[in-house]
């Protein structure tokens, strides 16, 4: 089965709130109708979704076999790369907007700074966890916000580049 494309995940998330017609998914994801049909055709072929009463729904029995594979660290890192590529390609570093931006800082941490930073991060994570991951009634899947955060150091990145 391999890993999941972000396009496919978005479609599954759209269906996770209930059965939808291709047109409803097109509106929910802000995709063209032919694109939704093309993804649905592929996913139906792989038994990920099924078509019943003019609507598509997730094929839960078949999907449960794939979940383990999709949630493997390697598969998830491919999805993360795809999302990051999308963010970088969209160029939010140069043209930040209120809802889409990507920031990067290179700094030196003292032990005290690091402890302070971690405390702030815990607060941020708690706040994010308190927000709903599922849409409220009128919210579209395409309006779902993606957060990225993390840190590393030059040593780790350079090592990773050198051992590629």
């Amino acid at each position, binding site marked *: 089965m391999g890993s999941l*494309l972000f396009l496919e995940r978005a479609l599954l998330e759209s269906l996770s709130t209930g059965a939808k017609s291709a047109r409803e998914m097109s509106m929910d994801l802000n*995709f*063209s109708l*032919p*694109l*939704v049909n*093309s993804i649905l*055709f592929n996913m139906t072929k792989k038994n990920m979704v099924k078509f019943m009463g003019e609507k598509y729904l997730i094929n839960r029995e078949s999907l449960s076999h794939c979940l383990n594979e999709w949630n493997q660290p390697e598969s998830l890192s491919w999805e993360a790369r795809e999302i990051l590529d999308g963010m970088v390609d969209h160029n939010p570093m140069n043209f930040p907007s209120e809802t889409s931006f990507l920031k990067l800082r290179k700094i030196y941490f003292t032990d005290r700074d690091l402890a302070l930073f971690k405390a702030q991060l815990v607060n941020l994570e708690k706040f994010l966890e308190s927000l709903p991951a599922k849409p409220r009634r009128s919210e579209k899947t395409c309006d779902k916000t993606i957060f990225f955060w993390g840190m590393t150091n030059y040593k780790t990145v350079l090592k990773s580049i050198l*051992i*590629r």
Partner: protein
Amino acid sequence: MFSSQKIVNDFKDEYSGLSYREIAAMTGIQMTRVFRIFNQQEMRVSEYERFKQLLLQKKTGAARLLELLNQYAIFLSPSFTRRMERYLEREIKIADLTKKGGR
């Protein structure tokens, strides 16, 4: 093994109308040597590399990608090559979906 004549012909196609003097200036190869190469004499590896580099600069898109891989794949690590392979497979899958269905 490489074919001198093939690269000379490719070079003539891509950089048509250049004089031997201009080709010598571009490649850094002596003009008399350029003349000989263009008249069937075999190239040295270093000369071949210079012509290849200039040809590569002319290529764009998929042709450039293929040429880069053709020339430099040997220097890339197996793990990086595997990653690029996977990356390309995913991009092709996305391109296939969007080609059939638009964006």
